[in-house]
C-alpha cells in the first residue's frame, strides 16, 4: 500500500464524513418547527420584516422543492460558499477566514504548551517515589477537572490583578497570549499527563529499557531515547480529541480573555441564532478535526510504521 492510495482513501473518507455532517445540518435546520426562513434570520424574536424573510427564502432557495434545495446547498458547499451571516451581513466563509488565525494560534500554542506541561509532569511523577506518584495523580486529575472559565478568572486575578505581571486581555503581543494559552493548556495537560505517565512508566520499566541499561545507557538516555517516544504515542493518538477539546475550550477562553476568534463568533452566533454562522462553524470544526486526524495518522506512521500498517480498524 502506498502513500498516494492511503491518502486518497483517507481524504475520500473525510469527504464522505463532511458530506454527512452537512446533510445532518441541512435536515436539522429544516426540522426546526416554524418557518426555516425565520430560523435562518435568527428565530421569531428577530422581528424580520416580510421582505427580509422573502430575501432569505430567495437566498436559501426555500421556495424550491426540498431535493433541489439540497442539491443547491451541496453545490454551494463544494464551492466554499457557506451562506451569509444574517447578523453580520457578510459571507460566513469570509468571517471564518478572518477569525480562524486567532483561534488556530491560540489552540496550537495551547496544544504545544499542554504537551510540554504534561511531559514535564509525567516525567517528574514517573521518576519520583510512591508519595510523589500519588501527588502526581492528584495534580493531574485536578488539572483535568478545572473548568476553563474558572481557571481563566483565577489566572487573571493572580497574574494580572495581584501581581500585575501579565495582561488580562490579548494585546496582540506575546505576553497577551500567555494567560489564554495556559488557561486552555492546563486542563488538557492534566489529561495528557495521566496518559503519558502510564506509558512512560511502562516504557522505562520495560525489557527494552533494561536492554538499554545493559548496553550501558544512563537513566537519562533511557528516558529520552525510549521513554519519550512511548509516552508521546498515546498522547499523539489523542491529539485529534485534544484539538477538538481545545476548540471547545477556545469558546470559553476567547470569551473570558476578550480574544477574537471562531469560538467567540460561534457564541455570538448562538446567542443571536445566526444559523448560517452556526452551521458554517460546525462544518468547519468537523473539517479541522478530520485534517488533524489525517496529520496525526501520518505522524503516527512515522513514529510507529508497523502499527500504522497493521491497524486498519
Amino acid at each position, binding site marked *: 500500500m502506498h502513500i498516494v492510495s492511503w491518502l486518497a482513501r483517507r481524504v475520500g473518507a473525510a469527504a464522505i464524513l463532511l458530506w454527512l455532517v452537512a446533510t445532518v445540518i441541512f435536515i436539522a435546520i429544516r426540522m426546526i418547527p416554524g418557518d426555516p426562513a425565520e430560523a435562518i434570520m*435568527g*428565530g*421569531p*424574536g*428577530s*422581528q424580520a*420584516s416580510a421582505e427580509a424573510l422573502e430575501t432569505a427564502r430567495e437566498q436559501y432557495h426555500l421556495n424550491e422543492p426540498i431535493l433541489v434545495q439540497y442539491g443547491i446547498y451541496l453545490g454551494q458547499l463544494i464551492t466554499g460558499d457557506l451562506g451569509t451571516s444574517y*447578523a*453580520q*451581513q*457578510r459571507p460566513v466563509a469570509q*468571517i471564518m477566514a*478572518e*477569525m480562524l488565525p*486567532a483561534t488556530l494560534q491560540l489552540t496550537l500554542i495551547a496544544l504545544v504548551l499542554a504537551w510540554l506541561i504534561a511531559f514535564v509532569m509525567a516525567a517528574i511523577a514517573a521518576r519520583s517515589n510512591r508519595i510523589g506518584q500519588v501527588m502526581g495523580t492528584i495534580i493531574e486529575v485536578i488539572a483535568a477537572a478545572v473548568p476553563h472559565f474558572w481557571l481563566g*478568572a483565577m489566572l*487573571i486575578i493572580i497574574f*494580572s*490583578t495581584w501581581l*500585575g505581571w*501579565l*495582561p*488580562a*486581555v490579548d*494585546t496582540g503581543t506575546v505576553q*497577551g497570549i500567555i494567560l489564554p494559552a495556559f488557561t486552555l493548556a492546563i486542563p488538557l495537560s492534566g489529561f495528557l499527563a495521566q496518559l503519558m505517565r502510564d506509558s512512560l512508566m511502562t516504557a522505562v520499566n520495560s525489557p527494552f529499557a533494561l536492554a538499554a541499561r545493559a548496553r550501558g545507557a544512563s537513566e537519562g538516555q533511557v528516558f529520552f531515547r525510549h521513554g519519550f517516544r512511548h509516552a508521546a504515542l498515546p498522547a499523539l493518538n489523542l491529539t485529534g480529541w485534544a484539538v477538538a477539546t481545545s476548540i471547545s475550550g477556545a469558546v470559553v477562553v476567547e*470569551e*473570558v*480573555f*476578550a480574544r*477574537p476568534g471562531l469560538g*467567540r*463568533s460561534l457564541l*455570538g452566533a448562538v*446567542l*443571536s*441564532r445566526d444559523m448560517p454562522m452556526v452551521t458554517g462553524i460546525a462544518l468547519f470544526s468537523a473539517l479541522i478535526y478530520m485534517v488533524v486526524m489525517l496529520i496525526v495518522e501520518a505522524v503516527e506512521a512515522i513514529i510507529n510504521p508497523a502499527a500504522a500498517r497493521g491497524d486498519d480498524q
Partner: protein
Amino acid sequence: GCGNTDSADGEPAGEPQSGGTLMYASGDAEPDCLDPHYGGNYPQGLIATQYLETLFTKDENGETIPWLAETSEVSDDGLTHTISVTDGITFHDGTELTSEAIKANIEHLQDPETASSTGFLAVERVEEVEIVDELTADLHLSAPDNAIEESLSMHWTAIQSPDALARDVQENCADPVGTGPFKVDSWEREQQINLVRNEDYVQPVENDRAEEVAYLDGITWRMIPEAATRYAALQSGEVHVIDNAQPDTIQSAEDANIGHLDAPRPGASNRVELNSSQAPFDDQLVREAFMRAVDVNGGIEALFFDTAPRSYSLLSSVEPLGYSDESLFTQGADEANELLDEAGWTERDDDNVRMKDGERLEIVMPVSTNQSVPAEQSLFEQFQAQASEVGFDMQINLLDLSSWYADLAEHNYDLVSAPYTKVGPSTLRTLYHSDSIEPAPSGYFANNAQVDIPEVDQMLVDAQETTDEEERAELYEQAQQRILEDYYVLPLYDQQNHFLYASDVQGMGETSAIAAPKYYNVWLDQ
C-alpha cells in the same frame, strides 16, 4: 454637554501633548454598522461621536446650541425650520459641507433601505427638505415640533457626506464619512475599530485651541464584553479608557488612581415599567403594592456603591424638565400586603403565593442580558425575592435581545426595564403616548407600560407643539405627575454611563448631546 469627572490623580493637568493612540475598551456588543443612521443604538452613537458631527449639540448647561449649523429659525406657524450650515467645513472624503448634506441625510434616514429606527423617529415630522441656497435649507414639517433641534443634536441623525451616503448600505456601514475630529481608518471585525486623526479638522464653533486638529493620533476601539477582564485591562495599562464600568470597580477606582467620568444618558431614566394592559397590573392597587414591596434603595446601595443615585423621575437627571416625587415610593411590606388584600388577592396557595378567583398572582419579567448590566439583573433578582414575601410569584426570564423583543411584541410581560435614550423631554411622548402602544412596522412599541390616558396624550402633543417655553414645561410636569401617581413606572436611577480612564489620560469630560465622551481635547501624558 459635560459629565462629572473625578480626575485621576487630582493634580492639575499640564500642557497638552500631541501624539499617541488611545486604547478604548467597550463592553457593548460590537455594532453591526458604524453608520448610526442604520438602526441607531447607543453603542453606535458612542463611537460615531468621534467621527461624525451633528447640526446641533448641547452645552454644559444642557442648552441646545448650533454646531454644524450656523443659524436656525422657526416660522411662526412652527411648520418650517430654516437651517444654514457653517461654511468651510469639509468631509473626510474632501467634499464640502453644504445644505445639500442636510437634505441627503434626512432623506437617507427616511429611506426604508437604510433601516433606520432611532433617527427615523427623530425626523419623523420632516415632510420635505428644500434647498434654499448653497448653505441654507428649509425643513418643512407635518406638525409643529419644538424638539426638532434636540432631535438633530443626537448622533443618530449626524451629518455624513452625501457622496458616501449614495453608496451601498453595507459599504457605508463599514466606512462612514463625516466631519469629526477622527475618521474611520479600518474595521477589523470582532477585533477592533481603528480611528485616526482627521488632519483637516476644523471645529465649527469658536474655540481657543491653538491647533485645530485633535491631540491624539487615533483611537483603537476594542470590544471586551467581560466586565472583569475589561477592568483588569485598564488596571494593567493595556487600555486607557473603558465604558460600562461595573459599580464595584468604579468605587475601587479611586484607590487605584483611575479617573471616573459619570455621564448619565439623556432621555428616560432607568425604570421598571408595569404592563397596565393585563392582569394583575391592570389594577393600580397591585402596581402600587409591587412598588412598595421591593427595596429599591437597599438594592441600589448594595449593588451600585453610591455610583447611581436613586431616581424618582421618569426622565434623566440631565433633563431640565424632569419631574420627581420621592414621597410616592416609600417601601413597606405591610402597606404592600394591605394593598393586595384590598385588591382582593387574599387567598394563598401552598407556596404562599397570593390567589384571587383561582388565579395565582404571577408576574413575568423578561430581562435582556444585552441591556441590563449584571448589577441590574441582581437588583431584579432581589425584587423577585422581596415580591415573593408579599405573595407575588415573579419569574425572571433572561433573554438575548431578539427573544426579549419577541416577548415584548407578544405582550408576554408584566414588568420590563427598557432603556430609552433621546435628547429632550419629548421622550415622554415617545414613551407614554397611547399611539406608542401601536407597534411600529418592526413590531417594537415604546409605551411598554401601555399607559392609555387621553388627557396625558393631549398634554404630550400640546407640549411638543407649543412655542411657549413655560407652557411646555407646565404640560410636561402635569403629564409626568399623572403617570407617576398612577404607579405605572418604578424609577430606579439614571441610565448609567460610566467611564473609567487611566491616570495618563488628560482632558476627559466633554460629552456630546447623547452623553458620549468626546476625545477631541483629550491627550495622553506620555
